[in-house]
């Protein structure tokens, strides 16, 4: 669900979701996409929040921690 929502605006995104509480609504999300290149951390988070806004609004996501990277970052 999360990965599909993110890929709507960031098609190349690789997404890892960690369920922090076992209830699937407190999530840590790791997103890697070329779309983050040259984008500030603040704006990267805005992009992720915007993509996941519907799940925020209807309560599927209650708490969300976001980690972002570009493919270049992860390859060192």
């Amino acid at each position, binding site marked *: 669900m999360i990965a599909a929502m993110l890929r709507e605006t960031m098609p190349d995104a690789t997404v890892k979701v960690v369920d922090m509480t076992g209830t699937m609504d407190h999530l840590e999300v790791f997103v890697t996409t070329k779309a983050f290149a040259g984008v500030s951390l603040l704006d990267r988070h*805005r992009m992720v929040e915007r993509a996941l806004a519907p799940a925020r609004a209807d309560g599927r996501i209650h708490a969300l921690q976001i980690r972002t990277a570009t493919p270049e970052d992860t390859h060192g």
Partner: protein
Amino acid sequence: MADLHEEIQREIAANPILVYGKGTKDAPRCGFTLETIQFFNTFGYPFEVIDVLENMPKRQALSEITDWQTLPKVFIGGQFMGDTDILGPMADSGELRTLLEKTFADSGVTPTIQLR
């Protein structure tokens, strides 16, 4: 609405480190607000927490100003900084300490503790 925006601008200007959160410093009512308070406690600079949990109009105004939907929201030196997801990496890189030193340089305020 305009009044709320003015109120927020006043609060931001009056507090070098300002956290809009859920609950107060002594009684945080959200895990992320608690985490943010603990985060700033380790720096030893004075900071203010303003509880907006039940003030929906003000939360709305804050979201408009920052283009950021969630609480807590942190302002340093009048600048919106996001939350600890942003500040954590800045702390690790040393960027945050430099920013705080700069922000407090003119006020004569020095940190009371140095844990990191």
